[in-house]
C-alpha cells in the first residue's frame, strides 16, 4: 500500500468536513445533522470535501453556489438534500430522506472519493480572472488607472474621513450570501475601515426558495393546537441559541443546545433552564453580547417579536387570543435592547413555550389572519418581519466592529426565505 493509499485509509475513517448551503425549509434539519458523529460542518469551503445543498434555492443562486463549489480544496463532491431536480449546480447525488440517510450518503461519497472509486468533481467555473488583469508587477501597483475606484473590477483601498483621528484606508467588500456568520442568503456590501463597517448596503438577493408552508404560516388560516405552536417556537429559539453560541466560540454549549432542541417534550423546561445557567457561566454576556446591537430609538420595532420584547415592551399577539389568556399567558420581557437582552428574551420564551405546551392539552389557537411566530407578528398577505429586519440593517450596522456586526445580525434572527431584495446582478 503506497503512502497516499495509507493516508486515504486513515482520512476516510475520520470526520467528513461538510460545507452547507442552506436553502428553504432546511435550517432545522441542518441543526440535527450537526449532531451526527463523524460529520463536521465547517465554516469555510476551503476546509470542506463535501458541499451539501440543503433545501431549495432559486436559479439566481447558481453563480454564488458555483463559486463556493470551486473554493473547496478537493477532493470534492456535492450532495443535494431535499432539493428539487435539477439542482442549481451539478451534484453527485440527491437525497430526499432524513438526517440519517443524508449522513450515510455523505460518508459513503467521502469514502469513495478518497479511495478513488468516485472521481472528484472538477471546477465549474473557468480559472481565469473575473476581469483582465492590467496592473504592473505581481500586486498590480503602478499600472495606469490603478489609483482609486475599482479599476478592472478590483476594489482598491480609498481614502475616507478620519475616524477617531486615525487616517485609515477604506476597503469596499461584499460578504455573503453563504458566509456562515450571516443568515443563509444575506449578502452585504460593506466599506471597511480597519475592522469597522463605515457603510453597509444589503446586496440584491433572492436566492432562497421558500420551503413548504410551516406551522405558523398554516396557523394564519386554520385552527392549530397551541401545543404544536409552542413546541415549534421552543425548538426555533433553542436552535437560534445554538447558532449564537457557536458564533461566540462556545461550541460545546451549541452542541448541547442542538441536542436539547432535538429531544425536548411539552412541559420539559429543566434542560433549557440548565443550559441557560451554563451559558451564564460561560460569561457570554460579559465577553460577547453586552451593549452590542442596541437599536436606535427612532426605529419602529412593533411586531418584531423577541426583538421588541427585549426592549421591555410587552408586544405579543398571543395576549389577544382567548385560548392563551385561559392558559394565564403573559408576555415575557427584558430590558436593555442589546444582543444579551435578545438572547435572554429568547431563552425565557423557549422556557415559557415549553411550559405552555405542557399545559395546553388539545386547546387550539384561531389565528384569524394573524399569528405570533418566533420572529414576530405574521399577518396574512403582508411581508414577514424578516423583511423589516433586513431593511434596518443598513442603519444599525454602521460603525460596528466586525465581530459586533456579526453578533448584531445573528441576534435579530433573520430568515431570508421570505425576503427578496432588489434584482441580483446577472
Amino acid at each position, binding site marked *: 500500500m503506497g503512502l497516499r493509499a495509507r493516508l486515504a485509509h486513515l482520512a476516510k475513517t475520520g470526520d467528513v468536513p461538510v460545507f452547507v448551503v442552506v436553502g428553504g425549509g432546511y435550517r432545522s434539519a441542518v441543526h440535527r445533522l450537526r449532531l451526527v458523529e463523524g460529520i463536521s460542518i465547517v465554516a*469555510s469551503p476551503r476546509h470542506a470535501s463535501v458541499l451539501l445543498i440543503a433545501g431549495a434555492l432559486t436559479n439566481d443562486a447558481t453563480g454564488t453556489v458555483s463559486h463556493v463549489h470551486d473554493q473547496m480544496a478537493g477532493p470534492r463532491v456535492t450532495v443535494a438534500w431535499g432539493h428539487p431536480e435539477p439542482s442549481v449546480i451539478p451534484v453527485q447525488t440527491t437525497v430526499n430522506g432524513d438526517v440519517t440517510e443524508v449522513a450515510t450518503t455523505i460518508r459513503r461519497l467521502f469514502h469513495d472519493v478518497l479511495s478513488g472509486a468516485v472521481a472528484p468533481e472538477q471546477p465549474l467555473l473557468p480559472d481565469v480572472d473575473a476581469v483582465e488583469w492590467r496592473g504592473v508587477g505581481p500586486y498590480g501597483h503602478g499600472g495606469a488607472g490603478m489609483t482609486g475606484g475599482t479599476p478592472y473590477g478590483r476594489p482598491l483601498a480609498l481614502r475616507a474621513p478620519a475616524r477617531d483621528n486615525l487616517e485609515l484606508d477604506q476597503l469596499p467588500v461584499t460578504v455573503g450570501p453563504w458566509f456562515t456568520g450571516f443568515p443563509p442568503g444575506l449578502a452585504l456590501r460593506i466599506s471597511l475601515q480597519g475592522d469597522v463597517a463605515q457603510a453597509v448596503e444589503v446586496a440584491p438577493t433572492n436566492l432562497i426558495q421558500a420551503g413548504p408552508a410551516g406551522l405558523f404560516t398554516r396557523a394564519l388560516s386554520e385552527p392549530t393546537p397551541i401545543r404544536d405552536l409552542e413546541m415549534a417556537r421552543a425548538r426555533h429559539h433553542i436552535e437560534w441559541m445554538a447558532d449564537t453560541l457557536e458564533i461566540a466560540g462556545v461550541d460545546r454549549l451549541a452542541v448541547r443546545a442542538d441536542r436539547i432542541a432535538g429531544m425536548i417534550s411539552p412541559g420539559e423546561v429543566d434542560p433549557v433552564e440548565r443550559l441557560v445557567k451554563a451559558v451564564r*457561566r460561560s460569561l457570554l454576556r460579559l465577553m460577547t453580547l453586552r451593549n452590542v446591537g442596541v437599536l436606535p430609538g427612532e426605529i419602529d420595532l412593533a411586531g418584531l417579536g423577541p426583538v421588541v420584547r427585549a426592549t421591555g415592551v410587552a408586544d405579543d399577539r398571543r395576549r389577544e387570543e382567548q385560548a392563551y389568556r385561559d392558559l394565564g399567558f403573559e408576555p415575557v420581557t427584558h430590558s436593555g435592547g442589546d444582543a444579551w437582552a435578545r438572547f435572554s428574551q429568547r431563552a425565557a420564551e423557549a422556557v415559557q413555550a415549553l411550559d405552555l405546551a405542557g399545559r395546553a392539552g388539545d386547546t387550539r389557537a384561531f389565528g384569524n389572519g394573524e399569528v405570533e411566530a418566533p420572529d414576530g407578528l405574521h399577518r396574512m398577505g403582508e411581508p414577514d418581519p424578516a423583511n423589516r429586519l433586513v431593511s434596518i440593517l443598513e442603519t444599525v450596522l454602521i460603525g460596528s466592529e466586525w465581530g459586533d456586526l456579526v453578533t448584531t445580525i445573528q441576534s435579530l434572527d433573520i430568515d431570508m426565505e421570505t425576503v427578496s431584495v432588489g434584482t441580483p446582478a446577472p
Partner: protein
Amino acid sequence: MTAFGILVQVTALLSGGAYVLVVADRLMSGTGSVRTALAYPVRRLSFLLLQPATTTERPDFEAWILGPALLMALAAVGAVAVPIAGPSAGGDIDAGLVLFGAAMLIVLVAVFIFGWGPNSVLPMIGGYRMAAMVLSVGIPFSLVVLTTAIPAESLSVGMIVEAQSSLWFVIVQPLGLPIYLVTAAAIAFWGPFDLPEGADLAGGVVAEASGLRLATWRFARAALMVTLSLMGQAVFLGGYLGPVLPGWLWTIVKTLVLLVLLALAGRTIARMRVQTFVWFGWVVLLPLALVDVFVSGWLAL
C-alpha cells in the same frame, strides 16, 4: 546536551504536547467518544496531507508560506529556553527568559502575515485583530514573566527554577500565574481569545488555508500552546523540581496540567469582543502586572 539532542527533545515535547492538546480539545468539544478523540489528530492530519493547497487571486505567497513556518520556529525557540530535566541536562540559556519573551511577541508578525498573505478580507481582519490583541497584552505578559527573574536574580530559566526549591513562585507571586495564563492564551490566540480565528470570521486567518498549509499552521499553534505551558510551569510551578518522580516527568506533568487548563478555558468561556479585550489588557491586566512587579521587587529588597 548536544544541539541535536536539544532538537530531538524539543521536537518530541512539542509533538507530544500538541497531540495531547488536540485530543483534550476534541474531548471537551462535546462531540464523539474517547476512542474517536484519540484517533482524531492522525486522521485529521492524514486528510489535510491529501488535500491540495488552494490559492486565491493575487496572494502574497511569501507571506502566506512564511507565516506557519515562522510560528513553528517561534514555538521551538521559546521551548529551547526551558530546561526539561534539570540544570545540568542542557537546554538552559543565560538569558533564556529574554529569548522566550522576544519569540512570543514576534508571534504577532507570524499571525499578521498569515492573515495578510491570501489577499482576502476575512483573514486580513484576523491579522488586524491579532495586532490589537498583542499590543494590549504584550506589556503585562512580559512584565509577569520578567518579574520571576527578580527573586532568582537571573534571567536563566534554570536559575529561576532552582530559586523555587523552597517555595514555588505561584505562591510568592500570586498575581503572576493568573496574568500569565490569560496573556499566554491571547498570544497563542486560543479561546476565549481566539479572535484571529473566530467563527465570526469563518476561521479568520485560516479561512482561505487548506492542505499542508493548514496542517502546518494547526500544528504550530498547538506547539505554541505547549511552549507557553512549558514556560509557565518552569517559572511559576517549580519546573522539574518535585519529589519521587524524575525531573523530566515533573516537567511533563506540570506542563500538561497547564495545557489542559488552557484547553478547558477555551471550550467553556465565550470569545471576548475586540474592544472589551483591548480595555481588559490596558485597564485591568497592565495595572495588575505592575502591582506584581512592585510587590515582588519590594519583597526582594
